[in-house]
């Protein structure tokens, strides 16, 4: 929660200028979507299902 608040607070300060303006413009989406991908990869490669190999 704090991180999200921090991001929301910080991002407008870098938004229009700076090297990564195009990324920072949508930073929350980046974080959430990368989190979704990480979750999927974790499920795929780490979840132990009896009788099945991972991956």
């Amino acid at each position, binding site marked *: 929660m704090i991180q999200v608040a921090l991001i*929301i607070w910080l991002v407008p300060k870098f*938004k229009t200028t700076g090297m990564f*303006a195009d990324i920072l*413009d*949508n930073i929350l*989406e980046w974080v959430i979507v990368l989190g979704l991908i990480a979750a999927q990869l974790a499920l795929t490669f780490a979840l132990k299902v009896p009788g099945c190999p991972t991956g």
Partner: protein
Amino acid sequence: MRAVATLLRSDRALSAVFALLLVFTLGTPVANGQYPEVVTIDSVHPSAIALFYQSCLGFIPQQDVSSEPGAQSPPSPKLEDYLSTELGVDESMVRIFNNFTTDGSTTPPAPPGYLRVAFYAAVCTDCLPLCLPGLYAAQNMYSAGTRLTTKYGSHFEFVSNVTVVGSTIRYSRWGTFYYDLEEHGRYTLNVTNLIRSVNGDGVFVSVDVRPGDSIYIPLLIAGGVLLGLAVLYTVARYLHEAMIADSADRHAGGESPSARLLSYAADDDAAVMGARGRGMSPRASFLGSNIHGSSGGFDKSSAAVSRRVRAGIVDGGAEHEQLAPELQEHGWSDSNGGDKARQDVGSIGLGIGAKVKERLRSLDTFRGIALSIMIFVNYGGGGYVFFDHSTWNGLTVADLVFPWFIWMMGVSMALSMSSFLGRGDDGRKPSCLAVLYKIFRRAAILFMLGLMVSNNNSTLGDLRIPGVLQRFAISFASVRRLHVYLTFVRSRQPIGVFRLSE
């Protein structure tokens, strides 16, 4: 030092290096192995056991299987079979010449002449090899030959002493061999002893080849034709616009047509700008992020500019070269057109105004390429292995089409955001419910279409729910909702602006 340099320069040193390389490459087919390697494969699936048993033990009378009722004598080798067998698409003919002997000193001792060749397509990682009857040859004999697929690399194993106990397979392996077969090629694998080494007896394989066909020529021709058409189209359009310019000049009493054409050619950039003036990059609207848009609609000055740019083909001169960027700056930062047509995800509304429906041409081009490849893949892909989906592991061009479409959907989403949140027909911001309704309606339509496409011949009982379009629908709904929601969060307006009540 000088001696070394001289040696390096001499031909003899070069050939010595090559000889050494040759020895190293030929002499070590199995690293640190002692021939024969005893291969044990545990807990094999019963159906695989059955296949393996049938292929490797079912046909050769041999000490350990001679009592088996199903055992048959190997097919008698015929040269005509090898030479005149009709070969289809992606097929080659392979036989072996068995010149492999052992002196019986190895453990376990190999019965001479009982060398069998097991095979699997190399794309199948760690797969169980199956023996091929057509590749069995008695001592100093050719085998009958067998048709093998050329789609993937071929992995051969030279085995003997095969035993199958329960779900365990055990055999002696005298060597492995990898080869890329070509379509319609005919190959003879000459199997002889590896030069005697500390590793014991291994097989050494040399290959006699009757070369096959080059399968990529049709693809090259097709690519050449497409490229030619593209060039032809470009040239034709170029000439066409030159003709327009000519006729305009004639009306205005300008220079001669040929001079006009020359100056047109010299003024290439400007011409291209003029011709493509309407297909500008959406960069401004990307970065502008004025979804809640401050400027109310269509800027008058940029309208004038765009009119001049479009007329620039007729006007000629370098004037529009400077005007075009101006258009880019003005016209594209506006995202509040509120054009109904731009609410479509497929069509990326980037309009200058409501009247001109603009498209991002690079994205359209990419979409066209992806669509062409998709249709090509769906109709067989010419039988090419990379236009087919990978069987289990790996990634082919055909596998990339779906990710491409997903990516394009995301890009379109970012571009058409303004129309989703822009003012509606009544000039007011849409309500939260309206936006959600739009999102879920589109997702539901996609989902239903997907169900129809992927279940064209099944009952409700065996309806398959997931599919390509269904995945599109789910990802569209979730990402679009996320995008809409976070756009509001980012704008630091209270969510209440979203007016749930309306």
